[in-house]
């Protein structure tokens, strides 16, 4: 048995943060830590949130040790964390996000604009306030992003790619306006990226990834054109990416990752091939993503992150095992990731919010049964009513 008097070595944190920066907390003022042999041992408390409270609130984004001295990467949620859902604030946050067109962050994220718009618009629809967004401007922008080859780019001037083609089709489906682009050419573009082994390139430059299989299949099914590709080989390729733990990776041989699992499970769901999945084995791996804080990580021994409330939870929902995680604890974690000042949701409590995590936080709560949010479809990450309107009915396990 491992027995040492010194603390285990530092693990690389997501970000380090100097203690003397904007805080008057000195090391001595940290709450006492438990004994090493005790249940939990918290050290290196370097992240803090807000000084508005009478006594400063600390969030421990760091090292929790179990009784054997094994570090568990997790956070501790303080009692003062937000416990109710601030929907209106999130709506205001998203509505104002796109209006700051000269903002630094907005400009330097141009290379993923189409997906950014999909995140924002989808979460607005789920919160019932899609009408606050400028529909005409969005549709016009998408039209401008379609290229001669049929593919759609992240923004004007950038190159077409499957990732952004899917985002664009998702937005157009939200607005029931797929005819705004040349659908035949989109179908042709997606078809052209399929390889003999069934895999998909992300674009003409040849990167292969199961994310792109999902993009292709999701996109074509939203357009009612799954017949355009070879579905059998698509499925065969995805199945070759299955691993010893029941999960899936980027390519054959790659390690399982919750995001990749979502893509593969989604692809199999859309094509009616969920029987390939060992639901008991995969479900076990997925429910083991839940950490003591209630949050979910994407791989063993990683930090929790709100976006996995989507990738993990949606996968569990699709394979019929969503009840294998502790719903209350996860809900508590997601709610603690809200920013009560600005609105929006961040990856972990106390971090900076963004539209990506806002969407996946809200979607997670929807899957957990929150009735103030529209039901979300676990395969498409879009409102269920939109998927129904598109005439799509998938059978899940």
């Amino acid at each position, binding site marked *: 048995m491992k027995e040492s008097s010194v603390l285990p070595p530092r693990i690389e944190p997501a970000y380090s943060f100097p203690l003397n920066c904007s805080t008057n907390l000195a090391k001595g003022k940290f709450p006492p830590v438990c004994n090493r042999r005790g249940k939990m041992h918290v050290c290196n408390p370097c992240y803090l949130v807000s000084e508005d409270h009478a006594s400063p609130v600390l969030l421990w984004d760091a090292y929790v040790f179990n009784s054997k001295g094994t570090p568990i990467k997790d956070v501790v949620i303080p009692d003062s964390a937000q416990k109710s859902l601030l929907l209106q604030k999130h709506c205001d946050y998203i509505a104002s996000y796109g209006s700051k067109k000269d903002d*630094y962050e907005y400009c330097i994220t141009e290379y993923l604009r189409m997906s950014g718009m999909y995140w924002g618009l989808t979460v607005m629809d789920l919160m019932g306030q899609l009408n606050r967004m400028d529909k005409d401007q969005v549709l016009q922008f998408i039209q401008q992003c379609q290229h001669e080859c049929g593919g759609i780019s992240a923004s004007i001037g950038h190159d077409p790619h499957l990732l952004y083609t899917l985002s664009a089709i998702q937005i157009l489906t939200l607005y029931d306006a797929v005819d705004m682009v040349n659908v035949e050419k989109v179908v042709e573009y997606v078809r052209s990226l399929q390889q003999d082994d069934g895999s998909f390139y992300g674009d003409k430059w040849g990167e292969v990834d199961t994310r792109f299989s*999902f993009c292709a299949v999701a996109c074509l099914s939203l357009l009612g054109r799954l017949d355009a590709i070879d579905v059998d080989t698509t499925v065969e390729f995805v199945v070759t990416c299955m691993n010893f*733990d029941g999960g899936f990776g980027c390519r054959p041989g790659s390690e399982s990752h919750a995001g990749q699992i979502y893509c593969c499970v989604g692809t199999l769901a859309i094509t009616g091939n969920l029987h390939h999945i060992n639901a008991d084995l995969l479900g076990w791996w997925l429910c083991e993503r839940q950490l003591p804080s209630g949050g979910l990580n994407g*791989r063993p021994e990683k930090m929790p992150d709100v976006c996995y409330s989507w990738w993990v939870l949606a996968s569990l929902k699709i394979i019929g095992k969503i009840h294998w995680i502790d719903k209350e604890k996860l809900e508590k974690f997601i709610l603690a990731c809200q920013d009560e000042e600005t609105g929006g949701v961040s990856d972990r409590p106390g*971090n900076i919010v963004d539209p990506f995590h806002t969407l996946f936080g809200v979607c997670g709560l929807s899957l957990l049964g929150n009735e103030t949010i529209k039901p979300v479809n676990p395969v498409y990450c879009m409102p269920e009513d939109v998927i129904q309107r598109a005439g799509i009915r998938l059978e899940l396990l």
Partner: protein
Amino acid sequence: MVWFEHYFGLCIVQHGRIKVKTTAEQQEAKRKEREKKLKIYNAGTEAVFQKRKNKEFDEEGLKLSGELLGVNPDIYSFWNFRREIFIDLQDKREEAELQKLLQDELHFLEACLKVNPKSYGAWHHRCFVMDAIPEPDWGRELHLCNTFLNLDERNFHCWDYRRHVVLRSNVNLDEELQYTTQKIQSNFSNYSSWHYRSKLLPVIHPDSSHPVAVQEDVLLKEFEVVQNAVFTDPDDQSAWFYQRWLLGRGQKKLQICCVHVSRDLQRIVVLLSRPVMMGQGHCLTVSIDTTPVAGKWRTITGSRMYSTLWVIDLPDQSLPVDKQASIAVTLMDDRYCTKFSEGLQLMPDQEETWAVAEFKQGSRFSTELSAAATSTMAQELESIRELQSLEPNNKWVLLTMIHLMKAIDPEHTKYAAELEESFNKLAAVDTMRKSYYWDLRSKFLIESVLESHDSKVRDVKLCQRGLSCLYHTDWMVLVTSIDLSQNYLKSVRSLSDLQCLRSLNLDNNQLADLQGLAFCRRLTDLSVKNNSICNVEVFEELRTCVFLKKLSVAGNPVCAIEDNVTKICALNKSLQVVDEQDSIG
């Protein structure tokens, strides 16, 4: 919509950025600084796009796009531009010059990856460069992977690149296996290495007849490697997940397990050993008295999913009353060109007949273990028990014990009590996943009951077993009577598989609906006392159960309204709600 584990310094999808309270002054200073940065950024971006538009594929293009990619490697169009430059230069420059340029590109990429080791774009570009460079040095690439994996042994981009390098340069896979051993020895908690092992072993030591496709002696040795790890740190999940794989079960061989013929329903139901889709590589045919029967095979519920159960509705008068019929069912597997047949006789006085494939006891849901495997498993169980005495509350230890006991003794005869105790303890020490443990326990219980039954047993008792869900209902296709009372069932959807079911007891469960029972068309007696059924509409599900005569509904919220019982009775003429008296009382 699909990005994971971004490691952006600068973008919207930021993971792990801490929010810090700043003063108005600080904010103003930051705003100004950002304004300045933005100007530079915008000017740079514009310059790159302009050059690209003008098709100026030169070193300046590399320099300009490089400045921006160095800061943000996710501007994917700029990587594309660089590739266009290199492709253009390929015909214009001498080989030595090209070699130099691409070597510089590799150095540039290393700098990018040091800042952002998880950039999809940068790693993919490296593959492109290695393909384009006149004299690739793959050895150096492998070394680079070592360096990056020393910095972060879980970087899946780097592991993937490593596999790419290994494939391209024909690295000896034994050396790769040694590398994972080394990595695991230096840190057991290295899921990526365990994963890589699971991929290497079936290639280095293949055995297609084994459930996990690895030679048994090699596999049994792996137990030792795992044991070292779990004894060092029993809380580390990596080794435990790997061990579960070692205990894995393979895919079952396709075969016909059961055929049921019903004269009055003019119907044949077939159970296969694994799910298939008719028409997609598989085809079932049936002939009566050697005449092929026309008809379409369907799943029980009409679902379009792959299924183990397939039904064919025979044309009228295919099985006339009082007449003997000899029936043959054949399954064709196109892929392996194999054929399985099952023949059976329906005697004149029979309403139904069936045929069941013989299975060795204990082999229906588990793989038979060889003598070597059995002894290894037994030793394994002994040492895990030892560990358990040191770590009585360790969930991984408990769960592994359960799996080992199950592997050694699929019928639960030897370890029944110990299993039960372990499950109870597990659910107590790991409450977050208790539903998973209860479901697993239900699965094992049902398996043990089905294994212990002769397949001709048509009356199954699973009452008061603490079942939280149902498994293997397809194997109960012949069952006519089942008692599932006093469990924790929330859904009975899968009971639709029980195509011969006549009598069903679901008393004292947690059912709010009866979905699935619509397909149990033979049902005559149903009891759903003391469940959570709230409204009358739930019983609409039973409208297709035309033989249903007795129904007990007492103790459900729906009974609170007197009228409701009358409404339920109206479902079909012969139906009697037998506990009417109780419910009013």
